[in-house]
Structures are given as structure tokens and as C-alpha cells.
């Protein structure tokens, strides 16, 4: 019985570290961006939409280190969400990580040599199968929707 308790305590400690790893492994892979859609809102009302098909591809690598997982990308242009938040701007290296609770967030980040960091968060929608939508949102000062960027991706 003593051995059983010790074994369980070891397993418990190990498993508590594995949740983030599980989500990271699940999310890593190469994604085709089938649609890149920008939605512009005026006082919370949709006013304009720009949609680009076959926007390129992005690879989320699992470097087995949280959070410093690298990416490779072959995108048509720098996505507006990245440009707005400073991620990947001026050729900065981009990394990614997800959360430890439910794996429904995808964070991209860059860091300058000076130590200045840039971050942005996508919410992952319908992410159970190979297809998913990565959604980024901006609001105006009164809290209403201003901009939504949706990446419709398919894992290869």
C-alpha cells in the first residue's frame, strides 16, 4: 500500500505538468489558412468585410518548452492582428503557446533584443476536428466591437 501511495504521488505531480503539454501537442502542426477574413465594425455594427482565400500556411512547432515554441509561416502579407500588436513586425521572430486550462487560446508573441515583448491572443473556435477558426478581436473605447479577424484554418 505504501508503494502505491508513493507511486500515485509521483504520477500526480507528473500529470499536473502534462495538461499544457497535451494542449500544446494537440495544437501543434501545419495549418493551411483557407480564408483570412477581416470584419470592420462601426459602433458594434458590421460595416465592411474583406476576405482573402488561400492566405498561406503556418506551422506551429512543438519545441517541448513552454512557452517558447517556434513557428514557420508562408503568409501573403503580415496579418493585421500581428501588425496592430507588433508581433512579427520588422522580421521579428514569432513564437506561440496555448493555455493550461482548456486549450482554447492561441497566443503569438515576439520579443525584441531590448527585451520589449509583443503579444496577441486568438480564441480558437470549433477547434475539435481538423478545421478551426482562430478569432482576434479589437474594441473601441466604449467597449463595442471595432475589428474582428478570422483565420479559417485546416490542419494538414
Amino acid at each position, binding site marked *: *500500500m505504501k508503494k*502505491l501511495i508513493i507511486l*500515485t504521488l509521483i*504520477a*500526480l505531480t507528473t*500529470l*499536473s505538468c502534462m495538461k*499544457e503539454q497535451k494542449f500544446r501537442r494537440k495544437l501543434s502542426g501545419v495549418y493551411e489558412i483557407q480564408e483570412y477574413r477581416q470584419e470592420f465594425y462601426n459602433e*458594434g455594427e458590421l460595416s465592411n468585410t474583406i476576405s482573402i482565400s488561400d492566405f498561406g500556411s503556418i506551422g506551429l512547432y512543438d519545441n517541448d518548452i*513552454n*512557452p*517558447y515554441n517556434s513557428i514557420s509561416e508562408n503568409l501573403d502579407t503580415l496579418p493585421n492582428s500581428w501588425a496592430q500588436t507588433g508581433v512579427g513586425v520588422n522580421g521579428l521572430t514569432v*513564437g506561440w*503557446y*496555448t*493555455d*493550461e*486550462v*482548456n486549450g*482554447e*487560446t492561441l*497566443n503569438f*508573441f515576439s*520579443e525584441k533584443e531590448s*527585451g520589449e*515583448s509583443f*503579444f*496577441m*491572443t*486568438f*480564441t480558437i*473556435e470549433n477547434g475539435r476536428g481538423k478545421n478551426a477558426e482562430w*478569432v*482576434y*478581436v*479589437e*474594441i473601441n473605447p*466604449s*467597449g*463595442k*466591437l471595432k475589428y*474582428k479577424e478570422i483565420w479559417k484554418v485546416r490542419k494538414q
Partner: protein
Amino acid sequence: MKKIVSLFILSLFAIGLQAQESNLEAFGGALIGSTNIGSFKDFAKSYNEYIGSSVEKELPGLGFGVGYQYGLIYKIDRDVNLGFSLSYLTLYSRAAADLDDGSKRIFRHKYYTPLNGGVFFRSNYLELHLRLGFSQAELESVSEYPDGFQSYGKERTLNGVYKTFGLFAGADASFRVPITKKLSVRAGGAFYGVSGSDYNDPNWYRDVDLNGIYTDYLPVAYGEYMELAAQNNLTLYDTENVVKLKGIYYYAFINLSYIIY
């Protein structure tokens, strides 16, 4: 974590098979209980005060949650009214504020005990179950927009996923109504105490050296927090004045229990 509990259950089962006089009972059922975390209630109050007239329905506390529990009770000798238990329980609750721009601020809370051992006393139809173990809680904070989209993104302060960890100690008292020789219904109530630390979002705003750059907790004094954030002075916020799981809670339960051997 459920794998660990299952592993334990299988081990108890195997050990039990070797002991002829032993007794193994499985139980499981629904529960309803308070998840009214005091410091979250304080956070909600300060949040409501801060956003003032732009709230249509104020953010309440986490109130009651519903959930389930299951486990095993093992007795080395079936004639002795003392046993050991292993169980898992979880409670889900939710709190939301409606804002006048048509959006909502939603908090979804999940409290659970990854590993929970106990001692079980029985006297005729009355039972007492003392439990001790680990506890964990997760708090999702999302903004829901009028089109129904729920965002974890940082366009709004405190969106994200928070978690905390603590120790659990509790006592259940219940009465048992036998249905058949092996099957019975058990109903009762329980109190439990949790030593919880801060809820924090470990995956937000870290640099590549894993250091947190910005605060990643839920502030109890939301107004003060927002003022400091506006001045880019968040380091001045008292990091002790944040939402913590710590407290004493209670729940009522109804279980079905079955004597395996």
C-alpha cells in the same frame, strides 16, 4: 487526473480481491453546492461599482454550482464499520454581467478534487465520511459580444483563463436507504475547507524567459487596479488583494452506491 483516480480504483479492486473478508463499494451521484468565493464576491462588487451605469445586470458572486462525484469505499473487514475511500468531485458554476453595449462579461468556474482520500464510518443507516486531498479550480473569464462570439482575447481587461491549486479537507454526513442487498441510495450534506492560493493566468504576457511581465491575477479592488493600469503603474497594486479560492464551502448530494463484493 481522472486517470490517477481510475488507477487507484483498479489498485484497490486488485488488493480487495486478495482479501477474502474485505468489502468494496462504488458510489457516484449528483451534488449541488456553494461556490461563493468571498474574494470573488468582493471583486464582483468592485467591478460593478467601477463600470457603474454601463451595466444592465450586475455581476453576481459565483453562487451555487452543480456537479458530480464518484469514488470507492474499501473495508478490510466487512463486519467493521470503518473504511477507506478514494473519490473525485467537481462543481461547476457561472456568473455573468450584462453590459449596455449588448455584450456580456462571463466567468465560468470549475472546482474539482484531483485526488481525494478519506475515512468512512457507518452506523446502521447513518454515515460519516472524512476526506482530505488536493483541490484545483479553473476560472474562465470571457467577453461575449452581441453576435454570440466569446472572446478570451485581451481586448478587455482580465479576459483569460485562471487557475489555482490548494488542499481540501471535508466531512460528509449522510443517511443510507437500501434498495436491494447490494444497491442503496445515500443522501446528505457536506462542509469542506480549501486552502487556495491566487487565481492566476500563467499563460499571459510572459517573456521568453518565462517571467510574467504584467499582472496575471484577478484583482479584488477592480477600480484601483484599472486606475493603476491607466497610469501604467500596475506594479503598485497590492498582489495580496486578489481573488483566492481559500474558504469554507458546503454542498448537498445524492449518490447511488453499489457493493461490488
